[in-house]
């Protein structure tokens, strides 16, 4: 018992005399310049009785202010992969991120930060010589490079396939019944002498689904112009209204029917969700459109629109990337475009080789994702974490 105690004292005394190797202070990688990072290698045989205390100062000689205090069992670089990634040596090195500025102080410019590390054990304390670093804003966030690489690869594939589509325009695209039915719906509206109702969803022009919807509107407006049918486009957003007016005007002009274009076809209703749906429902009940098209992003009002349209006997075609509203459209509409079919619609209807090429690129992307899922699953089963780390996002 006494021998054990003596050995323990000797060991702790030996430990307390050491300062960690590799103590370094540097600018935090991949940040906006608001902090520095102090790092050091773990001590041999360190345990919970050892405490690290990190102090900071604006000058080498102090005064020192305690920035962090933690036991040696924590604070490893492996806990912060967004800075240090997943290298195996991270499990053997400690680190502390030290904010460099008081609130609002950052505007004054970079300030040199001095950092000192103390190793505190039950019997003694040891301290390193202070080191300094200046926090600087970085121009690249390296942990996000994998995302950038994927986007570049996908972009290259898209442009390659677009070039290929220009050379060979006979690309196969599977039938999308909802889009094929649009021609039939427009014809039906023309025969019945009733208007078509076209909705762009409840998002603004910055939403991809709204952009896709306005592109489809151009195709629909061309057909409407040539058949001389009425079309009504109630809009939720004023910017979307302006875009729709311009799209429809060009469609009518390019179809040789400038006299048929009415600017009031696309009009602003309100940007209140249920006020919009109440107004559109009222339009449906009064004007009894023969066809209702719902393309864009929808929220809770999707079923209100679709059910009301259903009571009027209109043929209804919907397309949305709003996953929560898809079931409601599927239950109430005659045809529904699911998710990416909405984005494919413009290419499908125009049949332009350039746009069809990007559709093929999407399919290649999906095959790549499937491959990554399969490889990732196998790698995880084999406990090969490198693959998972390669795809980690921060």
């Amino acid at each position, binding site marked *: 018992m006494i021998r054990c105690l003596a050995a323990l004292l000797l060991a702790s005394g030996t430990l307390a005399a050491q300062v960690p190797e590799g103590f370094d202070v540097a600018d935090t990688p991949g940040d*906006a310049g*608001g902090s520095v990072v102090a790092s050091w290698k773990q001590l041999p045989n360190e345990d919970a009785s050892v405490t690290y205390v990190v102090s900071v100062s604006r000058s080498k000689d102090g005064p020192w202010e305690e920035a962090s205090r933690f036991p040696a069992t924590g604070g490893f670089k492996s806990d912060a992969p967004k800075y240090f990634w997943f290298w195996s040596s991270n499990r053997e090195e400690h680190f502390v991120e030290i904010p460099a500025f008081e*609130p609002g102080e950052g505007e004054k410019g970079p300030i040199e930060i001095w950092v000192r590390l103390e190793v505190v054990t039950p019997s003694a304390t040891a301290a390193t010589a202070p080191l300094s670093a200046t926090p600087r804003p970085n121009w690249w966030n390296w942990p996000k490079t994998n995302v950038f690489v994927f986007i570049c690869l996908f972009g290259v594939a898209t442009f390659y396939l677009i070039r290929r589509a220009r050379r060979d325009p006979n690309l196969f695209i599977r039938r999308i019944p909802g889009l094929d039915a649009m021609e039939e719906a427009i014809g039906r509206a023309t025969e019945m002498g009733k208007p078509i109702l076209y909705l762009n969803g409840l998002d603004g022009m910055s939403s991809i689904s709204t952009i896709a919807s306005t592109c489809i509107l151009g195709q629909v407006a061309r057909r409407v112009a040539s058949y001389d049918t009425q079309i009504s486009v109630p809009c939720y957003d004023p910017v979307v209204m302006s875009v729709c007016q311009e799209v429809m005007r060009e469609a009518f002009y390019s179809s040789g029917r400038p006299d048929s274009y009415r600017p009031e076809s696309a009009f602003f209703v309100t940007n209140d*969700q249920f006020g919009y749906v109440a107004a559109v429902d009222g339009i449906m009940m009064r004007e009894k459109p023969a066809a209702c098209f719902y393309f864009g992003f929808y929220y*809770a009002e999707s079923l209100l629109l679709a059910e009301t349209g259903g009571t009027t006997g209109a043929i209804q075609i919907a397309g949305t990337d709003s*996953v*929560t509203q898809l079931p409601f459209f599927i239950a109430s509409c005659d045809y529904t475009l699911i998710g990416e079919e909405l984005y494919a619609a413009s290419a499908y209807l125009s049949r332009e080789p350039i746009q069809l090429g990007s559709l093929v690129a999407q399919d290649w992307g999906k095959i790549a994702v499937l491959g990554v899922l399969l490889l990732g699953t196998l790698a995880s089963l084999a406990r090969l974490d490198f693959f998972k780390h390669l795809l980690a*996002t*921060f």
Partner: protein
Amino acid sequence: MSVELKKLIPRWAVFFVVAVALVWSLLIPRKSDFPGTSVVKGVYDRIDALPAGSPVLISSDFDPGSEAEMEPMLRAVLAHCWRKKLRVVVMTLCSPNSMPLARRIVTEAAATHGAVEGTDYALMNFKAGASAAILALGQSWAQVYPVDLNGTKISEIPAMKGITKLTDFPYALCIASVNTADSWVLAGNARYGLNVGIGCTAVSATDYYPYLNSKQITGLIGGLAGAAQYESLVKEPGDASAKMPTQSVIHVTIVLLIVIGNILHFVAKWRKS
């Protein structure tokens, strides 16, 4: 719907049956205990573990249309926070309509729990551009909100003591009927490592299960059922607990209507053949 079914059971008859079920459900006794599921407990346990005096950020991102579903959730969480003597900061990224609504709910709840504005809670105004606002808050709170809703400087509000940026909050809860919850996960959690929980409408709850599975959020309060569970956990039955029997009755009614519809469908099919 086939022509025969339409004639047999017109749409208005379905509406009438639902209306009758709704009225009947208001007359049946109220139950007040709803066992919390692990997803709701994920939010509850996190807030419960916070020491007294800790700040909690609540982003109240719903408008009057979804108030019925979201208000009980907000009230239950506020009750929990004030019982634990936590400081609550309420902001909104949804729309200008959201903060008047949130303020009414918060001030009513504060009156019930004896919470004082400025000391126990603070209200921030609406900020546009959800992700951008969250990213900016991660750099500096005062840059985005130099003053609170009443025009008081942030530095003069006791409830905001020690908060200089987003990561000074140990926990943030986004109660949203719109997709700002995605912004909190992508900008708040992914970018700054903020611990985030989500409260949402029942129909949107399935959108956030992937975040739950990948541990990007600690928990999820989904719809009225989630709110009722939270009320049971904090032992303060409120609107959600009162409305759950109605939801039960309506769900059972819809299931019965589906069964009846299928029976009639097969009978019509058999007669035709």
